[in-house]
C-alpha cells in the first residue's frame, strides 16, 4: 500500500522545502500537494513545478480539483506538468466526473504515456466503485464520514479498500500530528497487509529514493 502524506499550503520556498524534507524523514512513500477538498493548495501543479527546483527528496503526487473545471483546462495542466516533471509525476483527480477521467481530443500538447495513470480520490464506497468502473485506481483520504462515526486512516483502509491512503494535514500542527499517525500506520502495516494483500500493488510504482 502506498502511504502518501499531503503537504499543507505554505507561503515560501523555504517552508515548502522544510515540509518535503520532514515528510521524507517520516517515511512517506509520496509527498502529495493537493487542491481542495483533500488539501489546501490553490494550484497543486504550480506548487509541484516550483518544488522540483527545490531538491525534492521523494516522489511527488499532485491532486487536481476537477470541480467546475473545464476538462481541457484540467488536462492542459496535467500535460504540461508531465513535460516539466517527467512521466513519473503522480496525478490524481478529486471532485471528478467521468468527463474528467481521460484527456479531451482537443488537448495539445498530448499527454505522455503515464508511468502512473491518473488516480482518483475516492472518499466513500460509492466513489471507490465509480473509480473502479472507469478503470482507475483510487486514493482515500482519512477521516471519512461514515454511518458509525468517522474513520481514521486505518478505518478508511479497512472499509474502502483503496489502493493508497493519504494522511491529510491542513495546518502545521495537523501536519505534525499526521506524521505521528503515519508512524502508527506503518507500525500496523504488517497486520493490514496480512488481511488485505491486494493493497500492496502500488508500492512497486513508487520505489523509495535512497
Amino acid at each position: 500500500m502506498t502511504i502518501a502524506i499531503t503537504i499543507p499550503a505554505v507561503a515560501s520556498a523555504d517552508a515548502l522545502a522544510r515540509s518535503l524534507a520532514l515528510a521524507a524523514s517520516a517515511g512517506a512513500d509520496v509527498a502529495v500537494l493537493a487542491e481542495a477538498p483533500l488539501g489546501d493548495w490553490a494550484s497543486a501543479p504550480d506548487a509541484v513545478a516550483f518544488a522540483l527546483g527545490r531538491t525534492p527528496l521523494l516522489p511527488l503526487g499532485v491532486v487536481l480539483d476537477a470541480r467546475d473545471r473545464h476538462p481541457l483546462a484540467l488536462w492542459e495542466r496535467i500535460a504540461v506538468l508531465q513535460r516539466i516533471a517527467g512521466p513519473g509525476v503522480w496525478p490524481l483527480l478529486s471532485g471528478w466526473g467521468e468527463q474528467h477521467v481521460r484527456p479531451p481530443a482537443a488537448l495539445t500538447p498530448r499527454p505522455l504515456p503515464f508511468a502512473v495513470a491518473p488516480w482518483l480520490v475516492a472518499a466513500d464506497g460509492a466513489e471507490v466503485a465509480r473509480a473502479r468502473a472507469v478503470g482507475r485506481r483510487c486514493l482515500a483520504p482519512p477521516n471519512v464520514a461514515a454511518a458509525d462515526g468517522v474513520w481514521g486512516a486505518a478505518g478508511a483502509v479497512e472499509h474502502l479498500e483503496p489502493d493508497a491512503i493519504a494522511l491529510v494535514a491542513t495546518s502545521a500542527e495537523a501536519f505534525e500530528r499526521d506524521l505521528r499517525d503515519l508512524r502508527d500506520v506503518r507500525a500496523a502495516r504488517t497486520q493490514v497487509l496480512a488481511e488485505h494483500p491486494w493493497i500492496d500493488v502500488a508500492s512497486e510504482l513508487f520505489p523509495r529514493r535512497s
Partner: protein
Amino acid sequence: MEVGVGLWSMQQHHPVWRSLDAQYAELRREARLCEALGLDSLWISEHHGWYDGYCPAALLAAASALGETTQLRVGIGVMVAPLYDPVRLAADAAQLHALSGGRLSLGVAAGYREAEFDLFGVDFATRGRAVAERLAAMKLAWGSAEAPEVWVGAGVPAAVRRAARLDAGVLLPPAFSARRVRELAQLYRDAGGRRVGLVRDVWLDETDARARRVSEPWLTYCHAQYAGMAGIRGEQVRGATDRALASALCGTSATVLEQLSWVIELDLDLLVFRVRYGAQDPVDVERCLRLLAEEVRPALAGVPA
C-alpha cells in the same frame, strides 16, 4: 527600466523538430542563465489548442522557472483572461507570487483567436468586457493581500484605454511601427495609465549578417504562426511577416543600440526583448542572451523607469 526577455512558448515545429520535454528543460536552464546574467525578468506566452503544443499553461511553466531561481522575475506575457475563472486565477497567481517571494508578473489580454473561445465555450464577442470583469474580480479576491503586478496586453486603442482604467500596466506587442507604439503609449498615458511596457523582437549576434541569417527564419515562422492564429491567410501572411522582419532589432550590439534610440525615448517602465521565437538552438539563444546582458543592457542602465 526593467529589462526582460521573452517569449518562451515551448512549440514543437518546423524547421527544427525538438522535443517539448527538452524545451521545458531549456526554459529552466535559460531562467538560471538569465538570472546569472543579471537580467530582470523572463516572460512566458500562452495559447490553447494550437497544433504544435504551444504552452497552454503559462503559470505552470512560470512556476518551474521561478523554482529554479531566487531573484529573477517571471512574467506571463500574456494569458487569455476571458478563458479563466477569475477567483481561481487570482488564487493561483497569489500562491505562486507568495511562494516565489513576490517575483510573478501577470499579463492578461482579451485574446484574438476565436477557436480558443470555442474550445472553452466562452463568448468571443464580449472578450474585451470580460477582461475588465475578470480583473475587477481578481482585485476583489486579492483584497489587501500582496498580489502580482498586472499588465494588460493591448494593441488597439480600446484595449489601451481599458488598461489605464483598470490601473494596470500596458504591454504593447512587438512588430508595431515606432509611430504606432508612440501613439498607443501616449493614448494610455493620456487616459491616466502609469506603466508602459513594450515587447520588441530582437536578435543579437557577432555580425549584422549573421544576426539576419540566424533570426530571419525564426521571425518569419513565428509571425506566420500568429497570423494563422488571427485567421490571416494567403498573401496577407507575407505582409505580416515582412512587417515583423522590418521592425525587429537585429544585428550586432552596436547596431541594435542604434536602432533602440526611439525606444529609449518612450520612457518605458518595462522593455521585453523577444529572443525566443520557437524551438531555436539553445546555443544560439545563449549567445544572444549574453550579448544582450553584457553589451546592450549596460547601455540601458541609466534609462530612468
